[in-house]
């Protein structure tokens, strides 16, 4: 596998993580909005799409409503603990992706320098 194809996959990975983080941020912003239902992105399904190389639907991440959450009397079902947990998780996933991108560039640089 060449450096460039793994960079492309890493880019897709970072995109999926960013989309998920954005969805979670939106849930957190609407934690007090009556009738709001929390949404989430199916990480595995999106990653499968990225790894298969089919980038036709990349622009529109498929967000779906979270199921099995308890609705408060005002019709809102955002669980703060769950959202903060996913926030921390996606943040670390993003960090991992960035470190991998950096190491790919480092490898490339080593090859260029002929060291």
């Amino acid at each position: 596998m060449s450096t460039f194809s793994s960079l492309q996959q890493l880019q897709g990975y970072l995109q999926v993580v960013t989309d998920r983080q954005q969805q979670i941020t939106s849930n957190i912003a609407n934690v007090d909005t009556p009738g709001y239902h929390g949404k989430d992105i199916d990480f595995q399904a999106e990653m499968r799409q990225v790894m298969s190389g089919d980038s036709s639907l990349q622009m529109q991440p498929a967000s779906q409503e979270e199921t099995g959450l308890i609705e408060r009397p005002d019709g809102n079902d955002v669980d703060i603990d769950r959202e903060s947990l996913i926030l921390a998780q996606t943040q670390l996933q993003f960090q991992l992706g960035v470190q991998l991108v950096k190491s790919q560039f480092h490898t490339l640089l080593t090859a260029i320098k002929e060291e």
Partner: protein
Amino acid sequence: MGLFDMLSMSASALTAERQRAEVTSANLANAETTHTAAGGPYVRKEVVFSATGASPFRSVINQVGNFPQPVAGSVQLSQVVDDPTPPIQRYEPGSPDADENGMVNYPAINPINEMVDLMGASRSYQLNASAVSAAKQMIQESIDILKSS
């Protein structure tokens, strides 16, 4: 789509929660106000939140560039409504606001309710502030890719 949208969404929530805290503080401050410019006692106010689309800037950019519109995710304070609870009457014949029977109308404000509301607003504000920190850190990390290792 993108890291900067997260910042604007969290910012909208910070604004909404701050306005909620402001309205609650106004209720607390006017818990004993019997005289207003509109006449009668102060009326307790309540806020209504509603979910909205992306920031206007992003919407226009995506329209111009023919990109798909991003997910709706911001929040805004859509209206401030009056609490319809009737005022509490107290017998104070000496007060200038007393009616012919010596009763004075006081606003129906329970300080406990207001304090709980204030705490809720404060906690939500904290949560959104940590979301801002998370987004900021991710942006910083992306910038750090450019640094030569």
